[in-house]
């Protein structure tokens, strides 16, 4: 069997097991509600979930602007300019292991329990990894590319537009993929901690009243959101970075941390 076939079979059998195991009574509904009861709740409370999804998407989008926009620009500056790199990289790298989630209570004090604190937290949470990966990627650009461009008489603006930017595209897309995935995590986690809206909030709310189908309905939505983001970013990347996707398989680094 081809790997694709096997993957599809695994997926289908997981869906079937999700429906079948709770029905046989092997696991109580509280632990694992059946797929059909989860979907039924999702259908019945459609308006509530749609609103929560909208809130979450809005927060993720703005967090991504901070993380990807800022992270890629800062990473490009740090990776491209040796002096900045020597100054900043050791500091940023050593902060990398700090669980930024401990700062979330501070964010709620500063920005309130609304969307602002989620956007700020998720934005910062995703910013540093994006910046570090961009800085590393920019440094791997082959200096021969620029030497060749100079020998062919390229001016500095031409070197930037025709060599540095295209050579950075794989790095930029990797940054987008990583930043989006981490922004989703950051938003959902902060919604689960302190919030009044969003999918993460629905998970926590329904867990406290032991309403498992509603918890799983929220989990399912987050799962679908993350997978959709991964597929979308990969499709865009394949379109723009022909020379990489055609040659070797893309590393699914970001996908592993989301799903």
């Amino acid at each position, binding site marked *: 069997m081809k790997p694709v076939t096997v993957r599809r079979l695994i997926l289908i059998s997981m869906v079937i097991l999700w429906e079948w195991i709770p029905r046989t009574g092997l696991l109580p509904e509280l632990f694992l509600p059946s797929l059909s009861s989860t979907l039924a709740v999702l259908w019945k409370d459609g308006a509530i979930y749609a609103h929560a999804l909208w809130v979450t998407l809005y927060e993720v989008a703005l967090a991504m602007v901070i993380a990807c926009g800022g992270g890629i620009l800062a990473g490009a500056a740090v990776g491209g300019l040796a002096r900045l790199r020597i100054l900043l990289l050791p500091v940023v790298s050593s902060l990398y292991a700090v669980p930024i989630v401990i700062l979330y209570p501070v964010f709620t004090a500063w920005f309130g329990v609304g969307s602002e604190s989620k956007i700020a937290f998720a934005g910062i949470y995703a910013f540093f990894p994006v910046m570090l990966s961009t800085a590393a990627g920019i440094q791997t650009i*082959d200096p*021969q*590319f620029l*030497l*060749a461009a*100079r*020998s*062919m*008489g*390229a*001016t500095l603006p*031409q070197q930037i537009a*025709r*060599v540095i930017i*295209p*050579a950075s*595209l794989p790095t930029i897309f990797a940054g987008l993929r990583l930043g989006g995935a981490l922004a989703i995590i950051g938003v959902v986690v902060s919604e689960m901690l302190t919030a009044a809206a969003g999918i993460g909030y629905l998970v926590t709310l329904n867990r406290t009243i032991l309403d498992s189908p509603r918890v799983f309905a929220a989990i399912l939505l987050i799962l679908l959101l993350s997978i959709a983001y991964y597929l979308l970013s990969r499709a865009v990347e394949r379109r723009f*970075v*022909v*020379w*990489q996707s*055609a*040659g070797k398989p893309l590393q699914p680094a970001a996908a592993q941390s989301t799903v």
Partner: protein
Amino acid sequence: MYGGTVPALENISFNVPAGRFTVIVGPSGCGKTSLLMMLAGLRAQTQGTIQCLGRPIPQPDPLRVGVIFQEASLYPWLTALENIEFPLSLRGTEKKEHRRRAQAMLELVGLSGFGERYPHELSGGMKQRVSIARGLVQDPPVLLMDEPFAALDEQTRMTMGHELLRIWSTTSKTVVFITHSLTEAVYLADEVLVMSARPGRIIDRIHVDLPRPRSYDMMATDVFGRLRDRIWQQIRKSDA
């Protein structure tokens, strides 16, 4: 000279006759590449003058001097044809004319039909052919080549050397070619300049009077062996 720096090159003086194939050979780290960078206007020399066609070359001038590097310098996001067009597209805007000239170069290097391939879809030898085509497309009278075949396996390297001579014979360019392969040096050159270890100096000039067109059989001849041996002796002496 001060603070523990060692000059890369010292007392280098030579002229390259127009239309001739000159090979510079020397041990690794002797400053061959530095010398070539200076000839290309990519790096400034601290002392002395370099003249190319009667004028100094303070910065790259692709209409006078074309440079061919090792394979890594093809742009992976461009097709073979777009890579060859790249230097033309930096100045002109006549897209059709660029395409026509690039296509002609692609044919000259024996790659017609491969224009739409990306570098990762080409073999090492083919990439280097594209690179040669890119160096020739602006028709500069002088061509500098920095160990262009160093990354290739032995057989491909010999074939490419032979191909280069074929292309060169149709273009009448002045070529300065850097290598550390003695066989390659003798096979390609009209004249071989031998450099010493750091600080690099030119310690011998060897005229290669093998007839052209060169053929692989010549490598087995006594003349070829003696020339190669003489270069080897010079390099060994300078290293000791």
